[in-house]
């Protein structure tokens, strides 16, 4: 059990930025990011013991993160207030990097949740097959959706 906890802590430490990025893109404010982050960690922990390595670890983490964020977005669940998960507030920080990040957020967050997941994976340079495996659709479907998403992003840039 202790070994499992250590392995889990190491895994979270290694992939925390991926998890947090997903949560950030699916949230409206910093409280919601923290709540989502915790929910994702809890779901990862629940599945960690039975994770058999059927897919790569990063694929599994993306999957759990997106599933948690998308399902909570659908439910529009009301969260209790909980402590910070990371000592960072990407919604409030005013430095130049944060402004750039906000620009990215503004673009991605305007997309529907499922498209948000696809575009984030696309920005990670993942292949259509890998994206399809994570979001649970075919590579062909990914390419069709991405075509529409890119069109959408283009319209946003032109506005």
């Amino acid at each position, binding site marked *: 059990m202790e070994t499992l906890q250590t392995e889990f802590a190491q895994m979270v430490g290694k992939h925390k930025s991926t998890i*947090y990025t997903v949560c950030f893109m699916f949230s409206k404010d910093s409280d919601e990011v923290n709540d989502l982050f915790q929910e994702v960690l809890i779901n990862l922990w629940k599945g960690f013991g039975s994770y058999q390595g059927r897919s790569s670890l990063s694929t599994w983490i993306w999957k759990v993160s997106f599933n948690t964020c998308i399902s909570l977005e659908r439910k529009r669940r009301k969260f209790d207030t909980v*402590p910070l998960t990371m000592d*960072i507030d990407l919604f409030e920080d005013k430095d130049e*990097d*944060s402004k750039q990040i906000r620009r990215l957020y503004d*673009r991605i967050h305007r997309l529907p949740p499922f498209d948000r997941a696809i575009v984030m994976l696309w920005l*990670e340079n993942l292949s259509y097959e890998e994206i399809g495996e994570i979001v649970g659709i075919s590579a062909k479907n990914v390419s069709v959706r991405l075509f529409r998403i890119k*069109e959408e992003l*283009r319209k946003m840039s032109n506005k």
Partner: protein
Amino acid sequence: MDANVGINELEEMRQQVSLLKGKLEKEQIINEKLIRRSMYGKVSKVKRKSMILCTVGLLNIPCSFYVFSKFGLSFAFSAVTALFLLVAVIYTMWSGNSVRADYLLDKDLLEQSRGIALLKRRNFLWLRFGIPFICIWAGWFATELAMKEWNEVTMGFVSGSFVGLVAGLILGIQNYRKTQRRLDEVLQQIEELTR
């Protein structure tokens, strides 16, 4: 591939992703909720085990009465055994009252840590009473048996009881150590969170 979104734009978005990840990599995770859930799991396990032991102890009262009377052991011996089991069950339930697993999820942790420390102390006190009592009980048991006529059935009963006693002692001590270790871990986690 990126015909609809300009190359520069795509590059810009990727750079923004790298910026975001770079910023996050420097951060440490402070996850109180997860730690609280882990503590909840540990204490729930301790409480569940206690409930199982209480059930086994209660079921053993009529069983021991039946078996001891069948082998002609004195009523006093059976009564003391039953009383010991009853006291053990009541003590286990009472000592467990100092901690509530669900309180670890959202209540004051310092108060919970006091309860856990009390439970640890009570477990230790029970061990200090239980082991000498079991030794005396085993001696009494042996004396009772020595006064009986020995046949094959008595021999079987004696060897069965001996194996049961030794196994029970080993399992009991193992369970005690595991429980105390789990409670120590929870205390440590509370200390880390409240530091």
